[in-house]
């Protein structure tokens, strides 16, 4: 049991194990260095690598490190950390249950310590909402599908593109697993950040500071607030160019460029203006998406995709030398801005303002 709970610490049963072991979190934090170390590593690896890192060989330490990691995330309290942490926990859980499901199939054994689909359905109260499989296809109730698919930005997840019939959306096993990953992410994000009691916080100050430092180094929250399209990374230049030509971009590409522009400090109005070169750019859609990305109309604030994600969507084009050295389009832009002499930088918005003034004369 302990192994299962250590692998999947977000399970209800795992939470109960933590509670019934009569573990007092304050005592753990005070006395068990191994747990605190693993918890810190969990959060830092989440930030740096997008997963939760090597599990501790002692199941008990591994299991207890999860609630402590949540405490650390809450102490730092940044939205971007909550989001990245939850995504990393969910990604790790996803990899593990894919492993478990393959194991179960191969060994044809019910005695594994792994998790199977049935258990996941039960855990997330989905048994009633998921039907099948018939010929490898599951059917999921639309009222359950919509919240699970809400943060999957790719067009293929949109309801309008689903063969919805009798209130059910058909999904194959891969899609079902991706939806379950979303369910896990949501559960992990749920309730974060929470208020941490003083007694516990006092013992974790050093670890929280370390996480803050890593977060600052990643520069995810820094505002650049300079808009010089000439210095944009090639991928973003290409996307902006297509929008301005009035080409129809897939959702993920639109998301990428819009998130990028929002991250360099552009307002929704400015983004709309920049796109407006062509009349068919879809102002309403742009506004909705930008507000959503910015977190005005959604609980989360989105950051632009990394180079790896851009590559996997086929949006990484015209790579240059600088691209080889950076992991993220934001890093590319920052470096170009840093390299340029200040007087050389003409902010696009200042040009616009001039134009507007002369137009007003």
């Amino acid at each position, binding site marked *: 049991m302990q192994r299962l709970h250590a692998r999947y610490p977000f399970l209800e049963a795992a939470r109960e194990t933590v509670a019934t072991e009569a573990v007092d979190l304050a005592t753990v934090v005070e006395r068990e260095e191994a747990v605190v170390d693993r918890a810190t590593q969990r959060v830092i690896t989440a930030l740096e690598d997008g997963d939760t890192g090597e599990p501790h060989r002692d199941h008990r330490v591994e299991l207890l490190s999860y609630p402590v990691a949540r405490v650390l995330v809450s102490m730092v309290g940044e939205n971007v950390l909550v989001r990245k942490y939850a995504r990393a926990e969910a990604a790790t859980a996803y990899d593990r249950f894919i492993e478990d499901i393959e194991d179960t199939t191969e060994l044809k054994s019910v005695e594994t310590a792994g998790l199977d689909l049935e258990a996941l359905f039960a855990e997330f109260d989905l048994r009633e*909402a998921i039907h099948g499989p018939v010929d490898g296809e599951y059917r999921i*109730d*639309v009222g359950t599908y*919509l919240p699970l698919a809400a943060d999957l930005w790719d067009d293929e997840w*949109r309801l309008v*593109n689903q*063969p*919805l*019939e009798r209130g059910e959306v058909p999904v194959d096993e891969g899609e079902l697993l991706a939806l379950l990953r979303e369910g896990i992410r949501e559960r992990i994000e749920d309730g974060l950040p929470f208020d941490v009691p003083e007694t516990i916080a006092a013992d974790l100050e050093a670890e929280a500071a370390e996480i803050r430092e890593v977060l600052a180094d990643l520069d995810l929250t820094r505002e650049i607030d300079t808009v010089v399209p000439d210095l944009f990374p090639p991928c973003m230049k290409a996307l902006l160019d297509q929008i301005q030509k009035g080409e129809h971009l897939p959702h993920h590409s639109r998301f990428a460029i819009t998130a990028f522009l929002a991250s360099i400090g552009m307002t929704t109005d400015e983004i709309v203006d920049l796109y407006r070169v062509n009349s068919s750019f879809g102002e309403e859609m742009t506004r909705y998406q930008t507000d*959503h990305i910015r977190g005005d109309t959604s609980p989360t604030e989105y950051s632009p995709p990394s180079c790896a994600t851009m590559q996997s969507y086929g949006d990484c084009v015209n790579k240059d030398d600088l691209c080889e050295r950076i992991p993220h389009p934001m890093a590319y832009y920052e470096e170009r801005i840093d390299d340029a002499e200040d007087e050389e930088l003409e902010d696009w918005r200042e040009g616009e303002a001039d134009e507007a003034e002369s137009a007003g004369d």
Partner: protein
Amino acid sequence: MEERTRAYLRGRFRDHYRRTEITPPPAANEREWGFIPWTDSPGTTMVRHRSLLELGDLSEFLVRKRPRHVYFSAGRFRDPGASSMGEKDWQSADLVFDLDADHLPGVTLGEDTYAEMLATCKDALFRLLDFLENDFAFEDVEVVFSGGRGYHVHIRDENVRHLEREHRREIVDYVRGIGLDFDELIETETVAGLGRRTPTERRHLRIDGGWGKRIHEQFMAFVDELLDLENEAALERLQAFDGIGEGKAEATLNAARNNREELEAGNVTVHTAVAQLAERFASRAVERDNAPIDEPVTTDTNRLIRLPGSLHGGSGLETLRLDRDEIDDFEPLSDAVPETFRGQEIAVDVTDGGEVELGGDIFTVSEGDQSLPEYVGVFLMARGRAEKEKE
């Protein structure tokens, strides 16, 4: 509106509420209530954030307040009477759709009559119901004539009441066909193939539901039309499409003649020209089948909606719940005329005359003092086109 007119309408609305039994929506005490009183101020003031507890018995409240308009919330709350949305503590919300003749394509404002606009609106209602009953298979569906310019549909199925704004937007986009991407409806299957050295891909349009099914229906109807035509006429039909020249037209016609079964099954890889042509039917399907609902009403989980059974203060018509099998024969401009206003004439001074279609008749109303059937008088007064005259 003059005080005499207002007093008259207030009084007659009270008479209506005295003799009418109103069935409140389910969970009425978990909802926010609001109403607009008859006032002389030019702007309308909505009294809202009321719970049923504060209003008291609904029928008694309507008789006492005889409001001009009365609404209840789609949302259900732990404390519906709290003054801010945060304090109300949202629990769930009915999924509501609004079809408003003002926003419908196919309606020309200022040209179409009220009856024509409502007829266009009813067509749109049937398209909406096709989505709600078949694609979504909702079971708790309540259709309401708004008493004004259109129809409301309230969905109260347990499994959608928890949906938040962004999830409801997906439903809006679905029934409006927004963001439909033909490529995403195509399923690619790798076929290992007997006797084939390399596996090939088979591309199929998903025709088992959703927009794929609608596109396919239109496409097949077109294919069958082609098959009925003489060779030359069929080729001409095909070449009328942008990007389809002689070669592609011939390939498509051949596919239609020799491979109709494959096309029927959704196979669009018969020929590239076929796939290209099928894609054209995506926008046609949206144009023909989409339900042009008013988006903000559906996505707003706190929205106030007009109470069925109440009177619409801008028309004097009754907001009516309709049984599913009543909709076909429903004539809003006669069936929604309240009994209370039938059977007697009243004196009014008409300031803005013209044709009025109401109660199964068409009245050509001149301007000035006259006696009219009460429901016509009430309609004109509610619309600000007449004032009450002394009897």
